């Protein structure tokens, strides 16, 4: 991933997050490494249960109270957020790193005015008077595009529409001009026209304030619009990272292909069949052996159930990493076939790969 210059703002190194439960240990995040440079946007894509949210909650220390076992390093401006004492972490959380969540209604307190909640966020980190904080709250609401901010600052969350609540959440996140904003599915609960407004708002704020953004989503359209770099997560691991352009032009991992091929496109003909990824996402307690994706992978070979692939640079592009046991040449040819509209079975035959041994993934059960 890019991010040269004066070093990355955030660097996550070999992060593991495990939750011991009655049924066994949930391996939510399993050794992920990524960087975010100042002013850049990283998109983390994955399905539910892929560990994308847990990894960012851990960045803010929000998994500490849940009995999670965390190992690895999260360096933010020279501090390791994994080992930082609670008090120091609190000074960073909401100040230098802020987060916005998927559901704006449940992230705002229903009993307090929006303004009161904003003032609290400001005064938690800044030694300013209530009146000054209130001025700032109004300014922030105006900045995120809430009309008549000086009046609406006194309203309660239920008086705001869904889009306005998300704007208020963004205002709160921006209150202390964070260097890093983590946006976890910021538009999933919103309608398309409102989603477009919120994404445009995030982009313009990023330009103005120069903050870095980590955007977590399952929507490939959203990352294509927002992200400079993309990391694809599956079963607690990053399986592919690349610049946004690379990721869409020449994806390397079969899971990424699956994601790209299973979403209908606005401009595609109706006759194009969607190619779903067969089977279900795996349990994070009893994970598949070897490559975690092998039970669902149409190109899996017998030894893929044994060997655990590492994230390695793609030949010819050191900024593009993939964790896949297929040979680079095979992957390139497979994607070329898929891009032409071949089904995974046709692509496999064209490249001369034998069919996977276990067909259990295809039973749908």
């Amino acid at each position, binding site marked *: 991933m890019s991010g040269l210059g004066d070093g990355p703002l955030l660097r996550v190194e070999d992060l593991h997050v495990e939750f011991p439960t009655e049924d066994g240990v949930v391996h939510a995040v399993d050794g992920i490494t990524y960087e975010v440079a100042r002013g850049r946007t990283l998109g983390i894509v994955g399905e539910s249960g892929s560990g994308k949210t847990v990894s960012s909650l851990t960045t803010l220390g929000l998994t500490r109270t849940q009995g999670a076992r965390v190992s690895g390093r999260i360096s933010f401006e020279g501090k390791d957020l994994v080992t930082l004492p609670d008090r120091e972490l609190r000074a960073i959380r909401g100040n230098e790193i802020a987060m916005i969540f998927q559901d704006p209604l449940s992230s705002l307190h229903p009993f307090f005015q929006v303004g009161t909640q904003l003032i609290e966020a400001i005064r938690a980190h800044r030694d300013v008077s209530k009146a000054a904080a209130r001025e700032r709250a109004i300014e922030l609401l105006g900045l995120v595009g809430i009309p008549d901010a000086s009046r609406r600052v006194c309203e309660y969350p239920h008086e705001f529409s869904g889009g306005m609540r998300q704007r208020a959440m963004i205002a709160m996140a921006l209150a202390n001009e964070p260097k890093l904003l983590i946006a976890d599915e910021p538009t999933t609960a919103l309608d398309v026209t409102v989603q477009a407004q919120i994404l445009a708002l995030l982009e313009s704020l990023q330009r103005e304030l120069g903050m870095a953004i980590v955007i977590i989503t399952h929507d490939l359209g959203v990352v294509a619009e927002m992200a400079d770099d993309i990391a694809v997560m599956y079963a607690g691991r990053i399986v592919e990272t690349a610049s946004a352009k690379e990721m869409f032009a020449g994806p390397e991992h079969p899971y990424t292909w699956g994601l790209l091929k299973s979403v209908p496109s606005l401009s595609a003909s109706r006759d194009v069949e*969607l190619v779903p990824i067969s089977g279900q996402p795996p349990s994070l307690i009893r994970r598949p052996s070897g490559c975690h994706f092998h039970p669902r992978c149409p190109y899996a070979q017998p030894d893929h159930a044994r060997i655990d692939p590492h994230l390695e640079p793609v030949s010819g592009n050191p900024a593009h990493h993939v964790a896949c046991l297929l040979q680079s040449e095979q992957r390139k040819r497979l994607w070329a076939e898929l891009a032409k509209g071949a089904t995974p079975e046709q692509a496999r035959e064209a490249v001369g790969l034998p069919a996977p041994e276990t067909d259990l993934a295809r039973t749908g059960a």
Partner: protein
Amino acid sequence: MSAEESLVQVRDLVKHFPITQGIVLQRKVGAVQAVDGVSFDVRRGETLGIVGESGCGKSTTARLVMRLLDATAGEIHFEGRDITRLKGAELKAIRREMQMIFQDPYSSLNPRKTVGAAIGQPFAIHGLLEGKAERKRAVQELMETVGLNPEHYNRYPHEFSGGQRQRIGVARALALKPKLLIADEPVSALDVSIQAQVLNLLREMQRELGLTLIFIAHDLSVVRHMCDRVAVMYLGRIVEIGPGDPLYDFPRHPYTGALLSAVPVADPQLRGERRELLSGDVPSPANPPKACRFHTRCPKAQELCSQEDPPLQDKGTGTEAACHFPLAREELAEIGVRSAR
């Protein structure tokens, strides 16, 4: 259009939900105009898509057609017969012909009933296949059709994943071999990789069984993929309706244009292309704008738009739109409708 071609005809359908005040003596102080004068036909064997943002009345329309709600005014014809005010046994008989798949596969299945019982329930309600073995065989056949393992007949819903539960919903809906299937946001609660499984299943079922489908979704890409014709709703009205290709390639209503330009496209090359964003939020359906309901947010609105309600008219490019000043082809690129060729 003649009644033979269309399975469902909806005319001037209206549904107002009263807003009341007072606890003991309730009096009506207003009405949420959820659906306000909607007319459309669904032809046999086709898929009609209904798109729109939350609160536009798409689910209410579906429930009205299903007769799960009673219409305030208007008519619904099914196979040429007026079903708007049917009651009792007649209503029950017509319900066999139409079935629904719901959005949330978690709350639409009874957690205490086995999957076999859930799928067999329609037979029980309508007094069909009384024999135990006979019913079990039919249910297992259905499970097989929708890609579930028939051996899981005695399992409970919690043992299934979201995608599988939605398959159970499809099997249950298909049990009585309905003519009309209404799918209300059938994939929006599912993960991306699972969505395609359910969409493909619906398409396959339609082809095999010759079903007529009303497909409701907010995701425009999914609707394009699934539907022959598409109706776009805004604040309880249809603002544009027509076959998928012209509607997506050359939308005439500015709202359709705005919706299309708002969809994020999975292609970073297209980034930075400026597009027009609608400002503000959808007005309250309890107090919708007068005349054209979109005029308060419409970039093309003029004085006429706030005075006269535009009728749904054929605009000569394949779709019918309710607009005084429909979009011209030159404007499409300007507002960023990317599917325009």
